[in-house]
């Protein structure tokens, strides 16, 4: 029980030496930036993988120079084999869902800003915080190692459905050591995330500054807190599931492998296991994972929008309650991923109902945003643009969820590009837009330098239009019956759809290229950007009451005291149209 031992240095000494400052740092801000860097590396790799897949889909016989150097077997002569396509797909999904969508909005930005926003000097358990990052980092290395083993990465998709994921190399390339590395990586990731979630929860509950009641916490703090509660339960289930998978693969047990399974002309030496059991355990984690990815962005977008509109939301409380109910309901809907898995059809009905119900709080949140935006004189910063873009993506991607939530319609749409379009928009792109909004908003605070706004706006428009060009056509492809996870459609009845695929691929290449603007902006502004003032956006919350970047103990020697609700905008304050949370001045009605 090392919790106890790690609380002692809660007010840890100022970091000394290079290692303690930048590598094995206990400072939540450095750890947040480390997570951010890891997510950046993962998203770059994941995006390149998606380029390779898109390229192969429309030009299956065109050589990709240099690819044969990475995998002689997977891409002989630079041409991707169907199996290697599945490897790329698996790695793309795993990298993006775990190392990007979980790390960037939650672990990275949450780590950096949650303690500051509640007025704490650091996380509750700084040593655990450091361990959780380095465990996650190890998970990343283990996963990427799969590219460099002879067998290559696994081909079972990010969901690693049993029994093929559980029986070893008989099931295909990458399902030997590649799948082992995958399972170990995910188990490590679970451990790291559990430590992180524990830290977030204890910090929020116990380290709030004087006057910082729960309802005075900014919406994004709430979002990170709720997310950590979801993550705690979700990863606590995925971890034992990975353990059972590893035992099936290495110790000869039969948790997930049924009797009489013949694969590659070989009777598998297992009996009686249940492939559905893996799906239940996996999706019990997997669906809440969607909300782990999206809720932090919901919080960040609310935070940014309020600041840009210079007025409070219609009701911040209702947003918080909606997020709580989303968190609660997220545990009752996992079966909607399994409508066609052989579950009892009556169970499908049971899972369909809460799935449709969960759209109600999501809709309420959206309506509150839209209602608040009505008539607002919004400051169109890059952060605000990405926040608005988030709403657009959230709605466009969310609407298709209504269709998929109904078992009868899902029978047709299951495993088509419709599903791929749906989750990329609502979970992938929307969540990333939240991260972009947060990055443009907080970069100055994190580095002491502002990002270039003009580049930011250009980045937004290219990305916004680009992602619609990529993922909207996916819905049409899916409606036509274009199945997902196939490496080519050249000889298929889908031939006439190839122009659509070509359009998508070109859009993907351009939109991906536009992200270089963002990377350039990050690196250039980090060193040569405009110096960031303490409160560049006239914000009200505690992160704007400290220097940019904040000192190692956040608030120096003082202990902040909070007097107001988080968003006192549109009021007459001594400094302008806002009053900061730690300002003792009186606010009428505040």
């Amino acid at each position: 029980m090392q919790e106890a031992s790690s609380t002692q240095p809660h007010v840890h000494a100022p970091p000394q030496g290079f290692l303690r400052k930048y590598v094995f740092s206990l400072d939540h801000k450095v750890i947040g930036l480390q997570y951010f860097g890891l997510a950046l590396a993962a998203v770059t790799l994941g995006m390149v993988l998606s380029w390779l897949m898109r390229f192969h889909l429309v030009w299956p016989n065109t050589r990709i120079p240099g690819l044969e150097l990475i995998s002689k077997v997977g891409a002989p002569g630079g041409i991707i084999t169907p199996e290697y396509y599945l490897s790329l797909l698996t790695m793309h999904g795993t990298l993006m869902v775990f190392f990007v969508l979980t790390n960037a909005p939650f672990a990275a930005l949450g780590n950096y800003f949650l303690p500051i926003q509640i007025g704490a000097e650091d996380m509750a358990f700084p040593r655990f915080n450091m361990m959780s990052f380095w465990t996650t980092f190890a998970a990343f290395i283990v996963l990427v190692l799969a590219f460099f083993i002879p067998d290559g990465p696994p081909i079972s998709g990010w969901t690693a459905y049993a029994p093929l994921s559980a029986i070893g190399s008989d099931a295909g390339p990458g399902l030997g050591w590649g799948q082992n590395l995958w399972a170990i990586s995910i188990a490590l990731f679970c451990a790291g995330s559990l430590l992180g979630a524990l830290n977030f929860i204890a910090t929020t509950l116990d380290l709030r500054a004087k006057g910082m009641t729960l309802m005075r916490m900014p919406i994004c703090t709430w979002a990170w807190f709720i997310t950590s509660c979801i993550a705690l339960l979700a990863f606590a289930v995925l971890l034992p599931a990975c353990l059972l998978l590893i035992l099936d693969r290495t110790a000869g047990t039969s948790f997930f492998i049924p009797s009489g399974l013949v694969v590659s002309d070989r009777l598998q030496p297992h009996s009686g296991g249940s492939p559905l059991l893996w799906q239940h355990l996996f999706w019990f984690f997997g669906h809440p994972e969607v909300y782990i990815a999206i809720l932090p962005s919901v919080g960040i977008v609310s935070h940014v929008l309020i600041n840009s509109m210079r007025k409070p939301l219609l009701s911040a409380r209702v947003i918080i309650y909606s997020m709580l109910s989303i968190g609660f309901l997220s545990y009752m809907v996992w079966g909607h991923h399994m409508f066609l898995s052989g579950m009892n059809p009556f169970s499908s009905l049971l899972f369909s109902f809460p799935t449709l119900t969960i759209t109600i709080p999501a809709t309420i949140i959206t309506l509150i945003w839209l209602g608040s935006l009505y008539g607002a004189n919004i400051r169109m910063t890059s952060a605000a643009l990405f926040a608005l873009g988030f709403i657009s993506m959230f709605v466009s991607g969310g609407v298709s969820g209504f269709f998929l939530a109904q078992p009868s319609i899902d029978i047709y749409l299951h495993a088509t590009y419709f599903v791929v379009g749906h989750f990329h928009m609502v979970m992938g792109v929307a969540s990333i837009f939240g991260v972009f909004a947060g990055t443009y908003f907080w970069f100055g605070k994190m580095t002491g330098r502002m990002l270039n706004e003009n580049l930011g706006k250009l980045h937004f428009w290219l990305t916004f239009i680009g992602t619609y060009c990529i993922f909207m056509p996916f819905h049409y492809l899916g409606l036509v019956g274009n199945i997902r996870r196939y490496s080519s459609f050249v000889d298929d009845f889908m031939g006439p759809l190839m122009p659509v695929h070509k359009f998508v691929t070109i859009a993907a290449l351009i939109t991906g290229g536009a992200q270089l603007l963002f990377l350039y902006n990050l690196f250039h502004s980090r060193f040569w950007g405009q110096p960031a003032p303490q409160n560049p956006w006239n914000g009200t919350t505690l992160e704007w009451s400290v220097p940019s970047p904040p000192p190692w103990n956040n608030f120096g020697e003082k202990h902040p005291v909070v007097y107001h609700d988080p968003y006192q905008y549109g009021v007459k304050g001594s400094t302008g149209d806002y009053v900061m949370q730690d300002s003792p001045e009186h606010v009428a009605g505040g």
Partner: protein
Amino acid sequence: MSTTTTTPVEIHAVPEARQRDGVKARSAAEGASRSGIWVAMFAITMSFAALTSALFVREGSAGDWQRIALPPILYANTLALLASSLTLSRARHAVNARSFMNSRTLQTAMVWLVATFALGLLFIAGQYQAWRQLAAHGLFLSTNPNSSFFYVFTGVHILHLAGGLAALVYLIGQLAGSHSAFRRVAFDNTAVYWHFMSVLWLYLLLVMRAKI
């Protein structure tokens, strides 16, 4: 909060700087570690709930569910673990008896702590013996689903118990070393976690008796 310094060990020692608003009797950091241990136990409960539901699903998935006779030594191990919970409460009682410890209560606490640690080790040795007995009957991890779940349940439980043992070593080190470093919260948390391990074991035993 008392700040008397006439006795060697000050149980409630909390640095001034942590007393954010001066009203709360305990520091924020202490509160956080108390919350932390409950959150951790919640997550562990969830993991074992997942494993239990996996057991139920697996039982129904095929006709290969074959009951195995649990090694009787498990009951002796259970007694050892329950006794360790008892000795740990005695240690806690010694610490709680007065606000400040004199060398006598310190010694008492130490004796009970060492006894707890020894009983914990005894429990693990006994579990290992149970594994050997099952193996002697030809029941290994992969023999059948029942034996698989037996090894998984007992193994994962021991892994978690090892964390408790590490905490006990930490406490013993603190009591033996500089007294001023002793922190009540570490003691309380260890006790809560250790009792939780006992309750968890009783639950697992119950499940295994009913199903395995």
